[in-house]
């Protein structure tokens, strides 16, 4: 079984995000980067599937500049078999990304695509669903439980929805996007890092895919929301009760 796992390079989730003084972009000076945490979960799930099946090929792919090699190497060190970087300096919106990923999909013909439900930088939560639509295949989003069934022709997925865990069965190939509780990704080991250096990492120019993709979204300005001010501290439950009563009365509950 071939599994395609999509990784995005994002600022480390513990980074304090600063915006450039002219509001044009996030200030990335000195920022550490990581694999999008949801994508790490997707990769971990593919590794577990491989361990269960005994055999599978796991391809990690991303789109971006040379710097993305760093995240692909992390993917290889975690256990992926090979990596693919589609190189572009352009900033692409989710629909454009989905179009590029569709080209990768057609080239690789995987049985399953795993990726995070959203990237923690732009928080769009669109690419997987768009990719499934472009390919005319099924999707299961926000997945916290995944089981291959019926001789690996379907995936039975638990989805984290606003109303609780929903179970769907989706025909393969399909796009599955991972939620937080699907698994806990393994740490990269030293032997893993050494092995990763020998694994194939292919680079393709976006132009070579023969796609005309442009972003229809244009960011005009970024700003930081006005911070909330810390209020007052109360010492006793009676003080707190008084504040609650005032709050409740003012809001005419």
């Amino acid at each position, binding site marked *: 079984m071939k599994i395609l796992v999509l990784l995005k390079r994002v600022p480390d989730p513990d980074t304090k995000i600063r915006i450039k003084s002219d509001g044009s972009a996030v200030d990335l000076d000195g920022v550490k980067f990581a694999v999008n945490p949801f994508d790490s979960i997707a990769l971990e799930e593919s590794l577990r599937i491989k361990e269960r099946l005994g055999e599978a090929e796991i391809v990690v792919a991303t789109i971006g500049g040379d710097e993305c090699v760093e995240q692909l190497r992390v993917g290889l060190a975690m256990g992926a078999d090979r990596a693919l970087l589609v190189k572009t300096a352009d900033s692409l919106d989710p629909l454009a990304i989905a179009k590029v990923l569709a080209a990768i999909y057609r080239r690789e013909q995987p049985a399953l695509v795993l990726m995070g439900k959203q990237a923690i930088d732009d928080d769009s*939560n669109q690419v997987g*669903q768009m990719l499934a639509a472009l390919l005319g295949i099924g*999707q299961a989003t926000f997945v916290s439980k995944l089981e291959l069934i019926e001789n690996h022709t379907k995936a039975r997925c638990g989805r984290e929805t606003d109303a*609780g*865990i929903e*179970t769907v*069965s989706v025909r393969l190939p399909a796009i599955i996007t991972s939620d937080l*509780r699907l698994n806990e990704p393994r740490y990269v080991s030293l032997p893993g890092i050494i092995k990763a250096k020998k694994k194939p990492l292919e680079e393709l120019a976006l132009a070579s895919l023969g796609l005309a993709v442009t972003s229809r979204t244009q960011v005009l300005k970024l700003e930081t929301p006005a911070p909330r001010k810390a209020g007052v*501290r109360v010492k006793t439950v009676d003080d707190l009760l008084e504040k609650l009563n005032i*709050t409740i009365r003012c809001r005419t509950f």
Partner: protein
Amino acid sequence: MPNILVIAEHDIGQLKLATLSAVAFAGQIVAAASGSFDILVIGNNVAPTVELLRNYGASTVLVADHAQLEHPVGDKYAQVIADVATQRGATMVVGAASTFSKDILPRAAALLDAAMLSDVIGAHLAGDDFIFRRVMFAGNVIATVKLGGAVRFLTVRATAFAHPPKGAESSPVLSVAVEADKLPAFIEYVGRESKETGRPDSTEARVVVSGGRAIKNAEDFERLIGGLADALGGAVGSSRALVDAGVTPNSLQVGQTGKVVAPDLYIAVGISGAIQHLAGMKDTKVIVAINKDPDAPIFEVADFGMVADVYQAVPELVQKLRNQTA
């Protein structure tokens, strides 16, 4: 002139109130640039939901009612939305930012080769086009964005758009044909696990009481967080830590990857206040925090903070609230 299609959300016939925020957003756009909006209700036997949506100024309330549409599976719903948007000549398709819309709308957008913005919190007309504001980076960045294309998809944050008043005029209802055998069938709905608690949904309640790491188990959560919520007639929420620990179900999680709430009053009990959690509740009107750690970041955003052991403070507070109403 914008021609907007608002996608209604309901849970087996129970209208999700966030739909009214999407309607309010459509109303704002139409007020700024004339044009009109329709509301589309998809489901099985959804006539009661349709009735609830007839007094909000829609040109038409469209209904795609079919047994095959009983559950919101992404492939079928996205196809219906794309078909209806095309038939109606929609230039904008809008839903509330929820797991329902997030699953389905991007799929429908790609079917129409349309780009999309998630988590929109504002829009204004600049020249002859709209400019949108949306949140990203766990609510730490607000982006002002232009979105091109003949059809544009948006999800809007319910917390940013107050429900519109009910009008006297009743929108006409139009049934749209559903060719069920032509709809895709990649996804099969199996079932759902959800506990009926009798408490309101945290995204719809005026008071939300949330528990964090300080709560040791499900019984304590029910007694302390549930007890305080009940004393205030509110909903319960949870930090990610408690969901990860199996103490609370995922549907209670408030934060960047969970629900976004903005009630009148949010009481954070034993929640440290990681940025991922704050992303889901910092637009609340009044935040109260109870936490043993005086340096917990939650106190930096709380209007009223109390440094205390939640196991002592909360039962006392619940008792005193009950005595007041007794």
